[in-house]
């Protein structure tokens, strides 16, 4: 186990290990302070924590904001060392969360709210999907004509293959070696559809840019540095689009991946009853409403946050919490996937 963990860490930690969170914020003033480790922006997740402490004055919350891979490295090391003592761990890298649960790092929690979750949003009563965040295409409305805006992966492919090289070096996506959620989306794409191979090939040929992270990519599109960004987390794009009318968001018509950011209660949680209360709050009507207000639950379709253009709701493919996610973390599988990715994106 130790050796495998070390290997995994070495693989995951292409970026330097951050032993410290990127940012920390405190909410409420209750006597019991819960520590939440989140691969979640304080800007969007903080207000939800604030709502929790207001509804449950017995608790205060310290929210740590982490990069997904750094969070995973810390969490798995803590689990290995037996001091996995945060009260809740929330991450968009649900495959890594699944791995932690599979390793026995989490403790179960069952309530009426968890029982009501659909099967794809709960695993073993230890991993719970809190949010609904689509992987979207973001483009700059000012620089990309409406007619050219890709509404599906095929149109994106066509755009990149079109003569004129208008989009050469102007398409961005996550650097999947540095972004856990980027890897998850890319890997899910590779499992979902045969288009993925040609897509990264075309991206490579088009000099597409792989970079980290959501905020940087969206800012780049807003500035016009990039014209189109692929597989961006919709929950980050939406607030930016609210502020910047140049940003347009498309849920791909062929299929739209839907991520449910997953929470687990570490086995060594210092305040398990607080963890349970926080988790139940996040799954409750009030919590879900607050998450929706922060655009962490993105409503699709009519009167929703993102319009569906002609495609049916069936084109939305939730990334289900199940041990199948472990496949993407298989050492050889990951290595081969990354090799293909690097080959495509290699500077030439």
């Amino acid at each position, binding site marked *: *186990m130790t*050796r*495998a963990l070390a290997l995994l860490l070495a693989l995951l930690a292409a970026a330097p290990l951050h032993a410290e969170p990127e940012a920390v914020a405190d909410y409420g003033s209750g006597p019991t302070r819960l520590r939440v480790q989140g691969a979640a922006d304080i800007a969007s997740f903080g207000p939800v924590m604030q709502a929790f402490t207001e509804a449950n004055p017995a608790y205060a919350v310290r929210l740590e904001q982490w990069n997904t891979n750094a969070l995973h490295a810390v969490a798995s090391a803590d689990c290995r060392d037996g001091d996995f003592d945060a009260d809740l761990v929330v991450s968009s890298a649900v495959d890594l969360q699944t791995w932690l*649960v*599979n*390793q*026995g790092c989490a403790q179960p929690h069952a309530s009426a709210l968890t029982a009501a979750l659909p*099967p794809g949003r709960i*695993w*073993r*009563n230890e991993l719970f999907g809190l949010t609904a965040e689509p992987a979207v295409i973001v483009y700059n409305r000012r620089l990309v004509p409406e007619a050219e805006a890709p509404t599906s992966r095929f149109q994106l492919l066509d755009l990149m293959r079109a003569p004129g090289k208008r989009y050469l070096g102007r398409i961005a996506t996550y650097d999947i070696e540095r972004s856990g959620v980027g890897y998850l989306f890319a890997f899910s794409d590779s*499992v979902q559809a045969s288009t993925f191979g040609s897509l990264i090939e075309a991206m490579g040929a088009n000099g597409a840019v792989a970079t980290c992270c959501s905020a940087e990519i969206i800012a780049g599109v807003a500035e016009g540095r990039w014209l189109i960004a692929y597989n961006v987390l919709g929950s980050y794009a939406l607030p930016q689009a609210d502020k910047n009318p140049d940003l347009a968001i498309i849920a791909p018509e062929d299929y739209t991946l839907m991520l449910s950011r997953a929470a687990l209660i570490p086995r060594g949680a210092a305040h398990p009853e607080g963890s349970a209360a926080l988790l139940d709050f996040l799954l409750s009507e009030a919590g879900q409403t607050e998450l929706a207000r922060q655009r962490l639950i993105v409503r699709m379709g009519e009167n929703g946050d993102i319009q569906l253009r002609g495609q049916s709701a069936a084109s939305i493919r939730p990334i289900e919490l*199940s*041990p*199948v996610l*472990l*496949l993407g973390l*298989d*050492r*050889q*599988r990951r290595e*081969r996937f990354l090799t293909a990715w690097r080959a495509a994106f290699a500077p030439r």
Partner: protein
Amino acid sequence: MTAAAPAPSLTRRLGLALAAMLLAGGAIVAGLAFAYGRQAAGRTYDQLLIGAANQMAESVSLVDGRAVVDLPISAFQLLALAPDDRIFYAITGPEGQLITGEPLPPPSPDRPLETQPHSGEPVRFVTVNRVFSERGFSGAVTVTVGQTSRARDALATEITRNALIVMGIAGLLMALLAVIVARSALGPLGRIEAALAARAPQDVSPLTVPVPREIGRLVASLNGFMARLDRVLSANRRLTADASHQLRTPIAALRAQAELAADETDPERLRAIVGRIHARSRDLSRLAEQMLSHAMVIHRADAGALGPLDLRQVAMTAAEEVGHVLPDRAAELRLDLAEDPVPARGEALSLVEACKNLILNGLAHGASPVTIRAAQEGDMALLTITDAGPGPQPGQKAKPGATHGAGLGLTIVEAVADAHQGHIEKRMTAKGYAVSLILPALPEEPSP
């Protein structure tokens, strides 16, 4: 109709027996269901596990003399059919070096399937080998896949629970059925009870309530009892009628003589009247005695146990007793006894009494000698009293008081014959007038 002190309830006994049966059966079925459930669930999930391991082994290929694995998603989807179970896998090369997955406890070489505690839970492991023998790579790639046992435990529990539910329903139905069966089986008893309750006190005719065969015996013995009761009652009625008939005349005569005596002044004639009164009262006392004996005989014959006896013995005893009563006429009696025993089933005292009555009748109304014969004829045992007389003549009536209770005597004989399932035959023979008491002969049996 003996009543045991605390009457046990048939329904409760039935219920208890059934409950015991259901409990014992239930325990056995539950055990079997659990064993079967575990086995079936185990086999189901073992097959998934083996399938996944085979798919993983299939995905191993050699690239530049190096084993590489391209795990198929289907293997994981197969394992995810156990939705809440953790999965572990390791793919190792010939020297045990890990190719992919995580280090797992080394598999036992002789057991491809085994359950071991791992990572805090019991984990079912399956090991599959794939042997390569190519340039640069020779040896077996070992695929070990493990899965926790929640799904198989849940399936086993479900199978067991379903079996128990089905059994519980079956048990309830059986109990219900048993109650219905017990009610309907005991139903005829209720009908008998109602039929008996609805009867007039003097009604002792046989019950005609339709009942099942099992209860038929009860009804038959009830009817037999009532037939006996009927016989006793009618014998009593006959006795009362006879007695009133036979007593009325001598008592009237006695009173007449007594009135005569009251008015008589002549000492000589008074003495004659007193003598007649004495004779009459002696006859009357004999009559009373006989009536009592009659009652006793009827009672014994009806209520007493019928035992095997020899009719020759009866004939001898009767003759002897008559001789004692009437010593002056003993010489008129003849015994004609068979050489072999004449076995019959009967009550000795009442048979002797009946025989005595016939002898006395013969002596009183017939002519000497009176022959007492005991013999077996076919399946009949006979006790025949023959007198040399011509038999009863038309118009001849028993002369009450003057004899030893002639009419009453035959009544006793008839009652005794009845009680022994026998009958009486009267006929004229060459030797004279014969009256036979005919009983069913007892098959060869050592008489006591």
